[in-house]
């Protein structure tokens, strides 16, 4: 019996230790994120999504603390619904989540700690967020966000000159896509066999690459910019 209690205590203490490690990692990450009050950046969005044909499009992305975010695109751009500022939004409210270090992994030669973030609320749209954090530079190398509404979004981050701010040069989103249903009557094509098209296999994930250049950090972006 004594042994069981000892093991249980050790487990609890070690879990608490993992949680403390995770909270410390996230606190450092949040501090770095918070050092960026706002930014504007030029983006080249390249989408490779099943059943969608679109050429790369240029856009400007604006962000302002805490959660103001806007994509300004001249043409039409397709971006994932989740994953852009969700991490910043989530981490900005300390009481809204519980975090735990789940291990580590070497990513492109960099050792990353894997932190799982669970929402405190049962009704939250977020189910689980997994972050691969570089503890040396306090940057997110990869994230995996699972939500009730949009499924799973995996994001790979590549850093360059803006590493000091924790801002990536490139983001690669992999999103879950269900088989899109084309409303009948809207898409009536000649010489097309609808039965044959319905049986066509389609990929289940789509990829969206965003190349980010020309960062303007802490330039004092006005709130009016975010009005749609």
């Amino acid at each position, binding site marked *: 019996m004594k042994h069981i209690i000892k093991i249980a205590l050790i487990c609890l203490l070690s879990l608490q230790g993992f949680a403390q490690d995770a909270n410390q990692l996230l606190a450092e990450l949040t501090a770095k994120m918070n050092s960026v009050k706002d930014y504007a950046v030029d983006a080249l969005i390249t989408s490779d999504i099943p059943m969608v*044909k679109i050429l790369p499009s240029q856009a400007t992305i604006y962000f302002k603390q805490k959660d103001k975010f806007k994509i300004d695109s001249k043409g*039409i751009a397709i*971006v994932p619904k989740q994953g852009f500022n969700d991490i910043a939004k989530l981490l900005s409210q300390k009481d809204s989540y519980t975090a735990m270090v789940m291990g580590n992994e070497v990513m492109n030669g960099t050792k990353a700690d894997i932190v799982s973030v669970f929402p405190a609320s049962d009704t939250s749209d977020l189910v689980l967020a997994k972050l691969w954090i570089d503890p040396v530079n306090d940057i997110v190398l990869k994230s995996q966000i699972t939500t009730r509404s949009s499924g799973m979004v995996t994001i790979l981050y590549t850093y360059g000159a803006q590493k000091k701010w924790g801002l990536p040069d490139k983001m690669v989103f992999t999103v879950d896509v269900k088989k899109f249903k084309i409303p009948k009557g809207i898409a*009536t094509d*000649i010489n*097309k066999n609808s039965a044959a098209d319905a049986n066509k296999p389609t990929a289940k994930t789509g990829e969206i690459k965003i190349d980010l250049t020309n960062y303007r950090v802490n330039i004092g972006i006005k709130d009016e910019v975010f009005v749609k």
Partner: protein
Amino acid sequence: MLLKSTRNEFIKIAAKPRSYLGLVAITVLVGVILFALKADGMSFISFVTSSFEQTLSFEGNILNGNLVAFIVLQMLVIHIPLLVALVTGDLVSGEGAMGTIRMLATKPISRTKLLLSKFIAGGVYTLFIVIWLGIMAVVVGKTIFGSGDLMVLNSDGLVILQDADINWRYIGGFSVAFLALLTVSSLSICLSCFSENSIGPIVTTMSIIILFTIIGTLDVTIFDNIKPFLFTTHMAAWRSFFEDPLPVDQIRQSVVILLVHNVALILISLYKFNKKDITS
């Protein structure tokens, strides 16, 4: 002589109040569609994009002049044949009903040239209708909603065409739409040669279009062999210009079939009109 006769035929078309009905109808219909889209266009768009929007978000000006013009074209191209047939179906039989065809046949012009002038005048009227539709849909649409990338939904999924890559597609699309409407014009003039009253060819033309359209939309294997040869199948060929990559073979096939229909209808009409015993 052919040109003079064509000019006379066009004056006759211009003198009829019903000839303006098409232009007025297009103006009112496009006006209503533009107003509706301006008032609540985004709900229409979300109906199209809803299946994508669970995981993806569309940024940029989606409801722009190019999309509005495309929606207008899609809604109206099916109904424009009635406006064309209303005028062209009357070109021969209307004169028969009024008793002027007999007098016209006594003039020093062959029956072939006389009928060809009616076909040309009908074609010019159809061209006017298509140009007016283009002005109302594209020019007015872009003026009100501005320009932008075009989002087109077809059976392969969603195609987004860049703004700079669209104008030539509209020119191509309108050209094929004109050819399709010219076939309607030829059909109604052809039927007009077989009739002695005005209303018969107009109603018959619309009946044929409705019948062929129903055959074309029915997913029944027995019709699969005839569907590619029905002109109504190719009336939607203008949409092919908004696919990426451009289905050149499909467009070529549609153009050839529509041209063959036109030539066949003109030849049948000429044969009938030359053989016709004009007694009215």
